[in-house]
């Protein structure tokens, strides 16, 4: 029964990773950009919500709705000022640019908010503490359920957007062939800017969940980025449903590892990631080398 509990908790944890990974997956899928500042943008989102909560006393979930336009605007500005320019100069430049951005965000947060560890768990009210005791060894937390439901809704809505709206087709068309998309009248700059704005907004949602379910500080970003990146790779780069499944698989792997020994939590997640990498990308070459 405790194994079942570990799997259930892993699914909740994995839903959180999937939300974190979602924006990363969108930016990679549409622009082939790996945004190394993604984790820091999520943490920045958490701080924006934190500031709103501190100054108005509203619930973090409501504060997130207020923060959303700010994050969307930030996404547009990020695309039009930094990413668009770096995209023109090859595949390495966006990596360097977002790496630099990551450092800039961390240091701005350090200056503005000090290195103190914060949390919004206490402000979120009953959802952080409520849970249902299903049986002796299995309990389901309200927050876990909220995050899981939000994650499924998020990925479902994105799927619907991409498969059934003209704006979604435009995004897929640009992702597949930006040059040809321009030739049929699609403003690829605009599509890229919308994709980044969407990714930043979803990253902020990930930041909100991070802030409610645990703690954050100005340098929490890179850790979140690693888990998000692992979820994207496990699920298959650029595939949306794959990212959801990848996040869930990573979460379950971590809680199962922690079930064996709490120290193994992150390790089992990394091992799953490496196993997927070897099977998917390195398998053929590896076996060739062994044959020699």
């Amino acid at each position: 029964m405790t194994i079942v509990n570990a799997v259930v908790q892993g699914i909740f944890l994995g839903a959180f990773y999937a939300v974190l990974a979602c924006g990363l997956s969108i930016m990679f899928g549409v622009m082939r950009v790996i945004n190394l500042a993604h984790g820091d943008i999520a943490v920045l989102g958490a701080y924006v919500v934190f500031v709103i909560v501190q100054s108005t006393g509203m619930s973090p979930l409501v504060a997130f709705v207020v923060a959303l336009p700010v994050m969307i605007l930030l996404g547009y500005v990020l695309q039009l000022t930094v990413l668009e320019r770096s995209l023109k100069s090859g595949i390495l430049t966006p990596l360097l640019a977002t790496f630099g951005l990551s450092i800039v965000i961390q240091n701005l947060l350090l200056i503005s908010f000090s290195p103190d560890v914060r949390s919004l768990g206490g402000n979120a009210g009953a959802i952080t503490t409520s849970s249902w005791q299903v049986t002796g060894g299995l309990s389901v937390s309200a927050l876990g359920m909220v995050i899981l439901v939000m994650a499924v809704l998020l990925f479902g809505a994105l799927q619907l957007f991409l498969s059934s709206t003209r704006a979604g087709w435009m995004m897929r068309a640009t992702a597949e062939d930006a040059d040809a998309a321009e030739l049929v009248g699609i403003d690829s700059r605009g599509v890229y800017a919308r994709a980044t704005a969407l990714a930043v907004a979803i990253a902020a949602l990930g930041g909100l969940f991070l802030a409610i379910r645990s703690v954050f500080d100005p340098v929490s970003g890179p850790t979140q980025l690693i888990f998000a990146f692992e979820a994207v790779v496990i699920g298959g780069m650029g595939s949306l449903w794959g990212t959801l499944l990848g996040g869930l698989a990573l979460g379950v792997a971590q809680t199962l590892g922690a079930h064996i020994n709490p120290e193994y939590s992150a390790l089992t997640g990394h091992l799953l990631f490496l196993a997927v990498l070897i099977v998917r990308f390195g398998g053929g070459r590896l076996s060739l080398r062994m044959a020699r």
Partner: protein
Amino acid sequence: MTLLRVEELDCRYGLLQAVRGVSFELAQGETLALIGANGAGKSTLLRAIAGAHRPHGGRVLFDGVDVTSMPAHRRVSLGIALVPEGRRLFPSLTVEENLRVAAARRGRWNVQSVLEVFPLLQPRRHMAAANLSGGEQQAVAIGRALMSNPRLLLLDEVSLGLAPIVVDAVYRSLADIIKEGTTVLLVEQDLTRALNVAGRVICMLEGRIVLEGEAASLDRDRVVGAYFGLKQPA
């Protein structure tokens, strides 16, 4: 009335000069064929007119408007559409999505009327473009360009890689489109087809125009000579 005017156009890829000082005009309703050997600069010229290639010098005027530095998607809304070489469909989108995503201007052409001109696409309507045959893909590519209701349709080697019987079908549909009054500028390797479909022919060699004339008045030998850059007795 002049719809398209190209003035002293220069196009380069790094040090390679693909188009050298090309000037020509295209009247409303005209059909012009660009012919020439591989590497003569035909595709580059077409891409520069559509906005997919930024020219190094010269001007492109469309309906009196200087569009030389206008991005491709805005030229589409003015009424320029290119069917690119190699078709360049969006593989994961269905036939209908490929068409509907391109509907930049309203007019005679919509999903229904495109499917009427290319009836072979009707049963493939909800199939991903990646799973179509070459001929079907070419039909979608032309249909996709028509969806923006272009005043100027640029066609780059629409017969490339297709079986002759399919090329016949594509050209039959093209004849209908030309009859509708759309101005067409096409690049075609097949000389006979080019001379049949076009009112006027421009032959390019090494980035320059070497021969220009009414399709009916040009005799085949002169065109072949210009095509291969053979010296002509005056």
